[in-house]
C-alpha cells in the first residue's frame, strides 16, 4: 500500500479480540503520520475505544516481530503490518 500524501503512512493494523470482539473488525487499514511505534500508540489511543496507551498488557509486533523493548522508538514505515497483541506469559 502507498501513502496518499507526504509523511502519511498506510498501516495494516490487526487488533486483539479484547479490543475488537468481532472477528470482522480486527483487521483494518490505518492512515497516520506516526513515524514511530510510540507515535502510533498515541494515535491509536485516540482512535480505539478502551485502549489505554500505558496498558502493559498490550505488546506490538511489526511485520511479525514482537517488540519486547525499545517500543516507543521503533520506527514504522508505510505498508507495515502492525499487530497489537495480548502479551502475558504466565499461566
Amino acid at each position, binding site marked *: 500500500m502507498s501513502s496518499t500524501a507526504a509523511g502519511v503512512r498506510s498501516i495494516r493494523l490487526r487488533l486483539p*479480540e*479484547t479490543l475488537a470482539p468481532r*472477528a470482522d473488525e480486527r483487521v483494518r487499514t490505518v492512515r497516520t503520520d506516526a513515524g514511530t511505534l510510540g507515535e502510533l500508540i498515541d494515535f491509536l489511543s485516540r482512535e480505539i475505544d478502551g485502549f*489505554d496507551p*500505558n*496498558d*502493559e*498488557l498490550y*505488546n*506490538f*509486533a511489526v511485520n*511479525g*516481530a*514482537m*517488540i*519486547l*523493548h*525499545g*517500543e*516507543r522508538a521503533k520506527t514504522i514505515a508505510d505498508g507495515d503490518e502492525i*499487530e497489537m*497483541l*495480548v*502479551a*502475558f*506469559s*504466565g*499461566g
Partner: protein
Amino acid sequence: MSIHEKIEKLTRRLASGQQYPTQGATLFIDLAARTVTRAWIPLSIAERFLGGRGVNMFLLYNLLDETLEPMSEETPLIFGSGILTSLLPSASRGNVTSWSPESGVILDSNAGDYFPSFMKLGGIDHIVLYGRARSLTMLKIERGEVEFQDASRWAGLDNIDFRQRISEEHGKEGRDFGLASITKAGENLVLCSGIMAGPKSIWARGGPGAKMGSLNLKAILLKGRGHDLTPRVPHKGTNRDIAMKLLGTSVVKNALKTRGTPFLYKPSRMMSAMGTKNNMETTWTDALDAENIDDYRPGMVGCFACPVNCRPLNDLTGVSGIKQDRYVKGDGPEYVTLGKFGPNVGISEVTDVLRLNNICNDLGLDTSSTGSAIAWAMELWEKGLIDAEKVGDLDLSWGNAESIERLLFMTAARQGFGNVIADSTRAVEKGHYPEEALDSLMAVKGLAQSDPHDARILKAFALGLAVATRGMDHLRNRVTLEINAKINDDAEFKRKLYWGEVSSEPNSYDGKEIGVRRCENIYGVGDSVGMCRFTTKLFNSPSLPGYEEFSAQLSNVAGIEKSVEDLDHIGLEINAVERLINARLGVRRAADTLPRRWFEEPIETGPFAGELIDRAEFDAMLDRYYEVSGYTNEGLPVPEWRSELEQVLGA
C-alpha cells in the same frame, strides 16, 4: 527412626490448641493403624513459614527419611491449605507436598477448586498421611471427626464417574463437600498422575496421584463448614479493596476473565518460542491462537469464591466430525495443555486439543508430564530409537491425535506402551529406552518442563526453570513481565518492581537473577498464604495484590505482624528449606541446569533465530543468583544461615 517416632518427636514440639484466630488443626493420620493425632502448628513456626507450602515444608523436613523411597508408606503425603485460604479474595489454593516418585526431588504441587477451602472451613490447616491402608480407603472428615471408609466399590473409577458417585451420596461439590481424589492412574501408580481437586483442578506435578495410590488412599472427603473463622479484627473492608484491585487490573479484566490462559499461546508463537515437537522446533500454526477457541467456549468458571473465574469451559456438542461422547465437553484447556497437546506433539486442530484435555481431566493425568512423555516418545520414534517392538501397533507420528488418545488410556491402565509413558522421565532408568534417549529429554531435576515456552530467548525464564526446586517448572519463579515492552522500557519502574537492576533486554543475561529471586520469594509467600498464582503480584501484572495486601490481612485476620521486607524474607526462607530438603535427596549445583538441547542447539527461525543458552553466561548468571540468594556455590544456604534455619526446623 520410624515415621511414628518422628511424629511423636515432632508433636511434642507442637501446640495443643489454637495459636491465633482462624488457625486450623494439623491432623496426623496413620492409614495402616487407622489412628489420628491432632496438634496445632506453634505460632513461632506460623510466623516463620506462614502456612500452606511453607509449613508443609517444615513438616516434610521433620518427617522425611531420605534412606527410604518416595513411595514408602513411611514417606508422608502432606496436604496444606494456606494461612489465609478462603479468607482473601482469590485465595482458594492449597499445596500437596512429599518426595516425588516421578522426579526424585521434592514433590510440591498447588491446586484450587474446593478442597483447600473446605479444609480451612472445616478447621484443618494440614493433613499428614502415612502408612499404607489395608485396602482401598476413603477418609471422610466431618466436623473434625475422621472416618476410615472402605473405597473398594470405587476402585478403578476415574474423575467423572467418581465425582458423580460421591455427589449422589453427599450433595453438590463446592457447596456440600470438598473432595481430593485419585483416578485409576493413581491406583496404578502412574508417575504422571495427579490428585484431582475438582472436575479439572489437579495437584499435578511430581506424581502425587501415584504417591496417594501407594498409600491405598482413594480420596479424602471433607464435609461441614463449622470452624470459627472470626478474624482478630474485621477484614472484609480490606478484602473489598483487594478484590477491586485485582479485578481492576488489565490482565484480569481483559484476559483472564474473558478467555483465560489460552491467550499465552500467541505471544510465544510469534516470538518463535513455542515448544514444538519436543522442542525440536519453535514455531507452530496460528490455528491454536485463543480466538480460535471462542466458538467452543460456553462460559468461564472458577475456584471456590474466586471473583476472577479464569477457567474456560469447552463444548463440542453438535460439532461435525467430533465424537459425541462423554468427552464432548469439559473444563479447560489452560495454556499448558494447549501447548503440550498441541505443538509439542504436532497437533494443529483445536478440537483435538480440547478432546485430549477432557480425557486427561477424567484420567487424572498431569498434562505437562504426560504431554512431555508422549512428545519424547514421538521424537525417539522419529529417530528410530524405539520401534514397533516397543510401541506395539501405535503410530507415533507427529500429530496423530487418535494414537495419542489411545495412549492416554493405555497410560492410565499401564498397558502396553502406556506402561512406558506411565514411568514418565524415568523411562531410561526403568530400562524402557536406551541411554541415548536422555539427549532429547526436556526435563530438569527429573521433572519434565511444565509449560510450552521455549526459554532460549528470555534468559530470566531459562534461569527460573533451571533453579526451581521441584524441577523444570515455570510456576515457581517465572519473571513473566519480561515479555512486556512497557515494563522493559521503564528502567526506574523495573528497578523498583524487582528491588534491583534487571536488564531491559529480555535476551540479555544481566540482572535476571534479581528478577528470579524476587519472583521466587513472592510466589513462595503466595502459596503459603493460599493466594492464586494468577492473582499474585509479578505474575502477569505489577498491579496485582502482593506483600502489602498479605501483610494487612495477616495482621487483621491472624494478628501476625509482618512487613513487606519480612514477607520477602519468608519467601526466601521457604525456598531455602526446599533446597535443604533437596540436598538430602542428593541435589547439588549440577542439578540447577537446563536440557542439553538449549545449550547446544540455537533457535532456527523467527526474530530471535540463533539464540541459545551460552554455558559460560549461564554459569555466571547462576553464580549471581546464588549470591543474591545467600547460597553457597552448591546452591545451599550459607553456613551461618543454614545453621540457624536447621535449629528452627528442629529435625
